[in-house]
């Protein structure tokens, strides 16, 4: 800091700050002081800092506090430069923050011994209301994998498959490690060319950048990456700290840019104009060329059976399927994680996959003490095609919400799905 000209008792300094939320303090004559005339916040250990929220200067400055500028009725088409600027800012933010920020102040992680029988494991997942759990191997002293809803789906289908080698009784003692071995063997036989299942657990450390974690999640096509810390060089005595998901990272992004949304112009754009998500029909052309759908949109009629749903989840490689009626209006949604509801009262032992309809299967989960997937008591989270990206992001930042169904206003006709990975692929430009 240097004294101002003409006024030697006033000091000034110019700092370059990125748009967002900053805390600052002055060190005056050997003492830390804060400016009482500015907004301030009290943090840990009674430390008080002044708060500065920087915004990008904009010509259309409708100053109603720190709200977003008014939504425009006809959105101006966004320029490529604007998209690049937004992507660059988000990329910078993600690169300069670490996975440590994803940890809650006091968090909980539930892990399973890899020698637990598979049946017990799914009861635990259901009781605790968690969708995935990391697997611990006492012999190796390491975390060796993750048990997820997809495993349960594959097991159920194998049980229903008459050529299965597993009887009901064997399921009682079949351990998770044996299941994972068998699965790897099976996938190597079937997938001659396709992606190989990872032999090692995909994980990240608490000092890895958020950008690395996000890219790891997108590239490995998993939903959760455990954050593991080991204080020794060879990775022994690992401590599991957190299960990182894209929704946690999105929450960090939303929290940081909440007060400076104009610095990310792409967030104001309605989702149909920037083509995020998977759409039933083509809405717009890309660069003047009609783009082709990579694969048909997965939807199921409400009278379909649970067996159809599970097969579709596996074949289409999607994590959820909207359930519609004859007019393609949204009735409900069946996600992979709903499979754990079958653990209630050992329903999986009594049902036949093809005889149970999806709606009945969902009914099983309704009464359970299920916190996962619920927000305000709602299972299906919807949005409109005209919703701006920031609104979609805020909804997706809620834990338990992994995708939004894009519906037509009024009729609730399904138009598409937008998921966390769609949003991240768009924001990171991968």
């Amino acid at each position, binding site marked *: 800091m240097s004294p101002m000209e003409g006024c030697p008792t006033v000091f000034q300094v110019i700092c370059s700050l990125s748009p967002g939320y900053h805390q600052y303090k002055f060190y005056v004559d050997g003492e830390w002081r804060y400016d009482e005339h500015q907004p301030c916040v009290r943090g840990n250990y009674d430390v008080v800092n002044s708060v500065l929220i920087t915004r990008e200067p904009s010509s259309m400055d409708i100053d109603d506090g720190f709200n977003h500028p008014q939504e425009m009725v006809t959105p101006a088409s966004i320029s490529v430069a604007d998209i690049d600027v937004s992507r660059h800012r988000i990329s910078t933010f993600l690169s300069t923050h670490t996975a440590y920020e994803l*940890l809650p102040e006091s968090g909980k992680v539930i892990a399973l*011994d890899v020698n637990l029988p598979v049946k017990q494991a799914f009861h635990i997942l259901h009781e605790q209301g968690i969708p995935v759990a990391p697997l611990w191997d006492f012999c190796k002293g390491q975390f060796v994998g993750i048990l997820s809803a997809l495993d349960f789906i594959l097991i159920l289908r194998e049980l229903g498959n008459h050529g299965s080698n597993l009887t009901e009784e064997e399921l009682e003692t079949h351990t998770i490690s044996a299941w994972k071995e068998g699965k790897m063997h099976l996938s190597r036989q079937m997938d001659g060319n396709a992606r190989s299942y990872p032999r090692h657990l995909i994980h990240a450390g608490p000092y890895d950048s958020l950008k690395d974690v996000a890219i790891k999640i997108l590239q490995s096509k998993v939903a959760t990456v455990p954050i593991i810390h080991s204080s020794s060089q060879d990775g022994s005595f690992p401590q599991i700290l957190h299960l990182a998901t894209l929704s946690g990272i999105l929450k960090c992004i939303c929290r940081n840019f909440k007060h400076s949304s104009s610095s990310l112009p792409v967030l104001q754009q309605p989702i149909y104009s920037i083509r995020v998500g998977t759409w039933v029909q083509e809405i717009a052309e890309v660069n003047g060329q009609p783009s082709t759908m990579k694969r048909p949109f997965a939807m199921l009629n409400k009278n379909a059976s649970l067996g159809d749903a599970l097969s579709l989840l596996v074949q289409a490689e999607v994590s959820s399927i909207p359930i519609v009626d004859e007019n393609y209006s949204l009735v409900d949604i069946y996600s992979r994680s709903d499979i754990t509801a079958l653990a209630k009262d050992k329903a999986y032992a009594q049902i036949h996959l093809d005889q149970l309809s999806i709606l009945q299967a969902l009914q099983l989960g309704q009464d359970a*003490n299920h916190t996962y997937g619920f927000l305000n008591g709602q299972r299906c989270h919807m949005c409109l095609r005209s919703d701006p990206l920031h609104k979609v992001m805020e909804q997706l930042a809620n834990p338990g919400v992994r995708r939004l169904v894009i519906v037509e206003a009024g009729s609730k006709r399904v138009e598409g799905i937008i998921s966390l990975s769609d949003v991240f692929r768009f924001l990171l430009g991968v």
Partner: protein
Amino acid sequence: MNNQYGNKQDEATVMGFEVPRSPDSSYNNVYPGSEDEARDPPVVPPHLHHPLLSYPASRETPPGSLPLPQNVILNHLYIENRETPRSVVALGFTHRFRSKYVTVVLYKPVPRRGSSSN
């Protein structure tokens, strides 16, 4: 009573100065028991009775977040207390990483007595 070692029958004894025999009650051959072992172990201090492990997942707060732990329960291993015929036991542990707290609950199979281990 029969002094097998060093039989001193030939030794002259003086009437009235014989070494008295030990009283019979002192020959009971009972192991000296430690009184400590008869007592119950000390009770768990009351401040350790409140780990974060019994908090059910609530709908309001984001899943996986708990209240801040008291310092005294950190780095203590808790074992779930359930009826004996249980095949799974839960172990719980809260520790601090930098300025945040992590509670890990690990579910472990309980080997049954008499069963063959793999």
